[in-house]
């Protein structure tokens, strides 16, 4: 880093922009360019937009780096900019009251940034910025100096595994495709990422689009593909915009197109906006979708890597996997393997959300413990409530309890704990979350997202959801938990595709670890976390009620009676258990039980 410079890095991810990032950047740039300043200062001072650094809850995040020394401001608004500029950039003394706190420090310090290294550091819309950090050197190297087999060997040795789902060895996947003697082959970046609560791929595609493209180029070189697709969720508008721009830049520079790097190989990469279906994360469904059909998975007579799009060999990797590839080529397989465990190399990005103090995107080495992630990076449970569990891997993942907190994050350990890595969603639940309700929430999504092709997933998931519904509404029956287990394992065993094989996980894992909570719902008709509405009663505590009438006003069912300044009363017959009264009462006079 330039020793005699001032760099202002304004976060420009989706989160930041929604918090006013563009205005903040604009304000800094205005000031830098303002005529009052000396030209020599203007020459060494600049304001950059950089990718998301993961801590979106504190956006807009701004780094001010003066002569290599970095100060981070959080929750910056454009009206705060003049003071920061005045006092810190010109005056040299940071505005202490706005700088990031310890929580932020520990959030960043406890991570190991490999794949996210550029996010928050370089301008994702500037190809030169990427080239300045040795971008496309690995691809050039792969095309000019490496044989496909060498690349594949290197990837294999790095122990890189698919970051999207089951964690299949990336090198082996490439090898299958490489070995098929076909002229036409495809490389696909799977950026469908439709797991609620996961946004790692979005941040990578937004914050470091060239890394994804470079990864695809290296893959194309390794397997001999002439065509690539970036299959990206259409809702990720910023990522779409930046990838489109990045592709254009690559075509202009000749990194993509005909005879790239004079290797004789052509490569065209096309952006394919995914039309919005959860199931498209499944490889065969994704292939159907790219072929323009309903994304119904097809039975796998052979592997997609051998027989994918239009029957041709197709490697499908998710964005995170691909973004790792250039780094492996640059820094070596053993470096990458050394970051992780014996079986999984590198790091893993998680979308840490839910009831932790610090929500955001976090990257930790493979093999870190869940406890590290939740307590060190995430700063512990919000409002210091009691930890209950972590839902890992999105709606088709599983929920693990406190006893698993010392599990390590790698594919095998998580499988032992009864969940999956999936796309890295990590939702932390505390004592106020009902486990049955949480499972029902996930099944509500998955039963609706089933493609409808195979019997167990189409009907079975719906039936599981209905059983959960009756449990949470107080109509649970003896034997329902066993029925859920039986049906769930049946669906897992007999479904056609990976979606159905994992969709019952939220139920199976919670039944395994939180069986009591299910039983209380069924036997006692109670929800210990006070979430399941039908199992709650709201009543007015006579002694505490001031008769202010607020509850009466907000009640949508006119179930609350009472005269002003006298204790009010809730008619249980009419109460719809919406909780509005509870939320609105300033005196804690509504009892929820």
């Amino acid at each position, binding site marked *: 880093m330039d020793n005699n410079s001032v760099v202002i890095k304004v976060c420009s991810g*989706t*989160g930041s*922009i*929604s*918090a006013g990032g563009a205005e903040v950047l604009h304000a800094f740039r205005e000031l830098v360019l303002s005529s009052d300043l000396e030209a020599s200062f203007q020459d060494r001072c600049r304001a950059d937009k950089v990718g998301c650094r993961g*801590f*979106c*809850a504190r*956006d807009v995040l701004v780094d001010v780096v003066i002569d290599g020394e970095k100060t981070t401001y959080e929750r910056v608004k454009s009206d705060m900019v003049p003071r920061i500029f005045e006092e810190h950039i010109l005056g040299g003394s940071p505005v202490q009251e706005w700088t990031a706190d310890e929580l932020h420090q520990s959030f960043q310090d406890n991570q190991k940034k490999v794949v996210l290294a550029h996010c928050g550091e370089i301008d994702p819309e500037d190809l030169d910025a990427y080239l300045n950090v040795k971008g496309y050197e690995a691809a050039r190297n792969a095309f000019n100096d490496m044989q496909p087999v060498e690349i594949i060997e290197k990837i294999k040795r790095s122990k890189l595994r698919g970051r999207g789902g089951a964690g299949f060895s990336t090198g082996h996947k490439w090898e299958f495709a490489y070995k098929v003697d076909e002229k036409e082959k495809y490389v696909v970046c799977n950026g469908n*990422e*439709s*797991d*609620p*609560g*996961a*946004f790692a791929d*979005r941040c990578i595609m937004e914050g470091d689009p060239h890394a994804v493209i470079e990864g695809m180029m290296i893959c194309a070189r390794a397997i001999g593909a002439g065509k690539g697709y970036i299959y990206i*969720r*259409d*809702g*990720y*508008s910023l990522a779409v915009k930046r990838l489109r721009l990045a592709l254009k830049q690559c075509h202009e520079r000749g990194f993509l197109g005909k005879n790239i790097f004079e290797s004789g190989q052509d490569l065209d990469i096309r952006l394919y*906006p*995914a*039309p*919005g*279906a*959860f199931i498209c994360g499944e490889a065969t469904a994704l292939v159907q*979708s790219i*072929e*323009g*059909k*309903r*994304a119904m998975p097809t039975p796998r007579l052979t592997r997609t890597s051998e027989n994918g799009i239009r029957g041709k060999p197709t490697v499908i990797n998710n964005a995170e996997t691909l973004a790792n590839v250039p780094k492996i080529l640059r820094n070596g397989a053993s470096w990458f393997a050394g970051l992780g465990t014996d079986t999984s190399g590198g790091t893993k990005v998680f*979308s840490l*959300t*839910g*009831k932790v103090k610090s*929500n*955001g*995107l976090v990257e930790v080495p493979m093999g870190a413990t869940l406890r590290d992630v939740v307590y060190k990076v995430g700063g512990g449970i919000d409002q210091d409530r009691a930890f209950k569990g972590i*839902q890992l891997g999105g709606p088709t993942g599983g929920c693990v309890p406190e006893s698993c907190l010392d599990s390590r994050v790698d594919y095998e350990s998580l499988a032992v704990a009864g969940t999956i890595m999936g796309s890295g*969603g990590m*939702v932390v639940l505390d004592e106020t*979350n009902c486990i049955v309700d949480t499972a029902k*929430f*996930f099944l509500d*999504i998955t039963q609706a*997202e089933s*493609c409808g092709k195979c019997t167990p997933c189409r009907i079975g998931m719906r039936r599981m959801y209905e059983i959960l519904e009756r449990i949470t509404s107080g109509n649970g029956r003896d034997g329902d938990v066993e029925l859920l287990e039986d049906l769930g394992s049946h669906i897992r065993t007999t479904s056609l595709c990976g979606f159905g094989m994992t969709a019952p996980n939220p139920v199976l894992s919670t039944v395994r670890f939180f069986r009591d909570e299910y039983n209380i719902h069924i036997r006692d008709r109670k929800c210990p976390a006070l979430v399941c509405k039908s199992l709650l009663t709201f009543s007015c505590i006579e002694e505490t009620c001031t008769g202010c009438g607020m509850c009466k006003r907000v009640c949508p069912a006119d179930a609350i009676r009472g005269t002003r300044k006298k204790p009010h009363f809730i008619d249980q017959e009419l109460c719809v258990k919406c909780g509005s009264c509870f939320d609105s009462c300033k005196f804690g006079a509504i009892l929820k039980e």
Partner: protein
Amino acid sequence: MDHVLDKVIENYHENEGNALTLLQDLEENFGYVPQESVYELSDRLNIPPSRFFGIATFFSQLHLKPRGKNIITVCRGTPCHVKGSEKILSRMRMELDIPPEEETSEDRMFTVEEVNCVGACGMAPVVVINQQVQGEVNIKKMIKQVNELRAEE
């Protein structure tokens, strides 16, 4: 419409002939997938209309009914759910007079829809209003914005 369809078809031929991208183009041009356009394309490209219907009813991005001028997408992802997105959703539907089982108000001013996740979980609850992602929303804020949008008319 003919002009648009010509362009859509041109695009289709450049795009390796893909029925899904055709529909995406229709959605982009018309805001939904009009039935007449499906039949027209079906005729011109020799693709059965049933194929288009099957695709259009599968993907949430495609719509068979005209949509509102303003589109409000409420995120229903896990963190947003935990932070009360359901209430925001039902309140918005009520506020904008959206009939049950529909997504769009009768005057076609507003569409309120859900999405499984916007991928901006750090800022839950999240709502997207006309493609602008907004974090940490609450009902009050939402109603204010809706009124502003109404006033713009």
